[in-house]
């Protein structure tokens, strides 16, 4: 309880408040720009946090996460282009509503739904993260190993892409994590005699490369796209009738989004898809979906914003990222010398609650930003790509260099950018690569410790109940869908 109030008191620091307001405004700009999303924004701005205090640094990253996730709705509604992938489903009803001359109403609904979703999920985060951490406090290496395997297996379902390709990308990230000196034996691996590689491949340059530089290369093939912006007079708060129609949808999507966010690796994109589909399934007028149904906007936006708080639960309590952006925040924690995991709530509880309260503040702040500034922020969509992306390139390269002041990191970012571009071209998501890189070291370390503990008898792993539980969840994540499809196909054939 002491940490709960200490976190709240931390918000009285004017410097922290200034950082949060700036980061929220920056996050809204990032989210509103097509092509830039919360993950890319957080990766690009991570180097800017290096001189900040840890609380301020992580609070800034989470502020960007929350506000950019919300701001994707601005472009989704006004130019039919989701600012972030999590707002793709917002386009489906937001843009038709805007075309009918109700852009202000659509944005008002998006802002209110996002705020309720975000605040709801932060409350869950405040309650669930310490409980989860307490439950995980007594995890031994086999449990942690199985949990990490489960986290990696969830990469299969990321972003709706090919599960096999996602797993290949994730495994590639894990393999990259083995570069450098093996922490357990001090043996050099894949360093080719370069001392610079002894510490391994840096997370930050890889993140900047795969999210920032690869996006520049992807954008090079989208130069012909012309965005037509719908004019908006003023944002309108939802009417009483609107609230009556959407309150159940908002609550349902908040629950869905928070739960999806808590699942390792699954983020706002998946949450918004499920939130939208459930809104349609429960609607009394499903035929209106796709034509400007306000439940569609509310379902998508409440879900994607509630996933932000949910995603921070496993990130802080277990050290396993709950979403791609949470993976960047996890890197931010590590860069600042913090150890995410169960001990965070015993040794750094004040820090954890400062972050929770910061997220709460940001969620309330973007209600104001959204209501009063959406028209202004909508104008950032007018920034020409020919100006925006060269600037992103400058920030990417300088950011990659800045953290360790190493040119090797710049080369890593460039190579990761080119690799990321080709991966995306051939259907491999870059998100699993980044998460695999982050979790790879932990996975190997836990495997080694488990082997020591079990006297090198790996087959004893499933004899531990929690380990077995996580391994079963892994099997479900990997084979649940194909087995389900197989059973459904058989049942259809049998009539």
């Amino acid at each position, binding site marked *: 309880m002491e940490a709960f109030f200490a976190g709240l008191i931390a918000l009285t620091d004017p410097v922290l408040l200034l950082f949060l307001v700036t980061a929220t405004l920056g996050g809204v700009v990032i989210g509103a720009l097509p092509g830039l999303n919360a993950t890319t924004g957080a990766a690009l701005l991570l180097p800017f946090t290096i001189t900040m205090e840890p609380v301020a640094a992580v609070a800034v990253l989470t502020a960007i996460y929350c506000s950019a996730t919300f701001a994707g709705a601005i472009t989704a509604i006004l130019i039919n282009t989701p600012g972030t992938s999590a707002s793709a489903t917002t386009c489906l009803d937001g843009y038709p509503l805007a075309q009918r001359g109700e852009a202000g109403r659509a944005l008002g609904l998006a802002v209110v739904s996002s705020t309720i979703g975000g605040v709801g999920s932060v409350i869950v985060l405040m309650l669930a993260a310490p409980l989860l951490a307490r439950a995980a406090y007594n995890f031994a290496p086999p449990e942690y190993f199985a949990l990490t395997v489960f986290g990696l297996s969830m990469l299969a379902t990321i972003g709706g892409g090919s599960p096999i390709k996602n797993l290949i990308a994730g495994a590639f990230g894990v393999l990259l994590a*083995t570069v450098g000196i093996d922490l357990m034996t001090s043996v050099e691996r894949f360093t080719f005699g370069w001392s610079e590689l002894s510490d391994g491949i840096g997370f930050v340059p890889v993140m900047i490369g795969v999210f920032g530089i690869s996006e520049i290369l992807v954008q090079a093939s989208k*130069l012909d796209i012309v965005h037509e912006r719908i004019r908006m007079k003023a944002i309108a708060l939802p009417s009483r009738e609107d609230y009556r129609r959407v309150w159940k949808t908002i609550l349902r999507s908040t629950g869905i989004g928070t739960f999806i966010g808590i699942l390792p690796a699954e983020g706002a994109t998946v949450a918004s898809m499920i939130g939208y589909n459930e809104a349609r399934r429960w609607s009394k007028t499903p035929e209106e979906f796709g034509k400007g149904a306000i439940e569609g906007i509310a379902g998508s936006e409440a879900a994607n914003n509630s996933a932000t708080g949910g995603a921070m639960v496993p990130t802080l309590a277990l050290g396993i990222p709950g979403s791609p952006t949470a993976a960047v925040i996890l890197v931010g924690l590590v860069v600042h010398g913090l150890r995410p995991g169960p001990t965070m709530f015993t040794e750094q509880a004040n820090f954890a609650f400062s972050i929770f309260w910061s997220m709460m503040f940001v969620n309330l702040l973007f209600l104001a930003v959204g209501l009063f500034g959406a028209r202004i922020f909508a104008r950032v969509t007018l920034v020409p790509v020919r100006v925006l992306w060269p600037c992103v390139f*400058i920030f990417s390269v300088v950011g990659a260099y800045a953290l360790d*002041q190493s*040119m090797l990191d710049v080369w890593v970012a460039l190579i990761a950018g080119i690799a990321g571009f080709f991966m995306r071209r051939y259907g491999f998501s870059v998100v699993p690569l980044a998460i695999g890189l982050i979790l790879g070291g932990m996975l190997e370390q836990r495997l080694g410790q488990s082997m020591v503990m079990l006297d090198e008898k790996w087959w004893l792993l499933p004899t531990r109940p929690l380990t077995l539980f996580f391994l079963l969840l892994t099997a479900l994540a990997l084979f649940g869908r194909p087995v389900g499809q197989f059973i459904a196909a058989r049942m259809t054939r049998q009539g």
Partner: protein
Amino acid sequence: MRTINKDVTGTHLERWLVPALILIFCAAAYFLTTDFERMPPILKRGIQPSDFPQLIAGLIAGLTILMMLRDPVITGNRISRVNWATIGLLPVFAILTAIDFFLALAVTATALAVLWGERRGRILLLVGVAVPVAVFLLFDQLFRIRFPRGILTSLWYG
């Protein structure tokens, strides 16, 4: 097995080249691991340094074979000239850093803008001069980052 629509698949070469490259990469990684130092049983701490990378390389290879059978590589359009030229700018940037880091940034950013169709002088000045200078000053003054010395940065550092 899924039916492949020839209109949306990449060239025949790409469809097989990508998995082939991944398999070659795995084989190379596995081969490299055979050179890793082996630890005596008392020091190996559960697994040998080569065990885990070998396991992952094997896993990638297995998944790649599965991908070839169940979910082959599909590509849309050919990579455009602008795309190739943009990729080509990255090694140019790398070479130019030998002269000066910020000169390389300015030249590459300007070239990128020009390549993507920007012709307005003041915009090119913004991208090629104002932004790199602002970023340099921000990182140098606020974050105390020392950039590699070059023709321009040496003028600043003295």
